[in-house]
């Protein structure tokens, strides 16, 4: 019983921000069992729950709100692509980022909003009011990208929205 709970806790430490379904899949446990142990771990204050944009994420204690938000954002392929592009190219205009990644403006803007809310990317305006995108902390940003891994469902959803945005905006 506690062995299972320890396994779940250990999994959360190596995969902060996972969803219940991912724990169920990765550890090959029953959903009810995982939920029961997660609830117990939350009760013991060993694990923190956070709902971000309609999805429930579980984190080991010690991840503050900003770190949790960052990991949730970086589960999205396109947000990762945008961040990595900005690290590689340095401060870049939004139009150039959209062009480099072949994504629609609405896709870019949607992910920028999330990246800015997580304090990963900032918008700078020059005197003429033109926007340049900058990564707030390039090195730690790359570490976070390496530490997070989008699930298959995250990838499918991300690519679908990318496609729809591209088709609709033509």
């Amino acid at each position: 019983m506690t062995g299972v709970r320890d396994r779940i806790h250990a999994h959360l430490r190596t995969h902060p921000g996972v969803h219940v379904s991912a724990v169920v899949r990765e550890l090959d446990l029953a959903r009810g069992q995982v939920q029961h142990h997660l609830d117990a771990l939350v009760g013991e204050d060993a694990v923190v729950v956070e709902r971000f944009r309609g999805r429930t994420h579980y984190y080991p204690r010690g991840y503050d709100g900003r770190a949790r938000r960052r990991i949730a954002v970086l589960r999205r392929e396109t947000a990762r692509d945008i961040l990595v592009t900005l690290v590689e190219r340095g401060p870049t205009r939004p139009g150039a980022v959209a062009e480099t990644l072949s994504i629609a403006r609405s896709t870019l803007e949607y992910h920028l909003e999330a990246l800015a809310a997580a304090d990963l990317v900032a918008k700078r305006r020059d005197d003429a009011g033109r926007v340049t995108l900058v990564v707030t902390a390039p090195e730690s940003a790359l570490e976070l990208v390496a530490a997070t891994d989008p699930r298959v469902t995250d990838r499918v959803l991300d690519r679908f929205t990318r496609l729809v945005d591209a088709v609709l905006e033509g």
Partner: protein
Amino acid sequence: MVLLDGGATGTLPPLVVVVAVLAAVGTAGVLGVALAAYVRRRERSYLLVVGAVAALLGRSLVTVYAYGFAGLSSGGHHLIEHGFDVVLVALVIAAVYYARSVAPAREVEP
């Protein structure tokens, strides 16, 4: 030929039902993704895309029902299927229209 014309006494389902069931299963999957995308984005265009995929699913379901359960006359189900086509096209056009009318209000600059 029973397999192709959907003979009522055949033990095998007519080919059209098999194809329509395959289409319905695939479309149901796409509908799930479209719904998840709408929940994430909360934009009117995404809701219209959900409607368009649902119309596509409706079309397959009508075919399954008409041939599989012989519930509709041949003319009747064709009318309903093409009716779904009209709805689908209208929803896609509306989704494109709203995507265009929303885009300039967004903040990204050239």
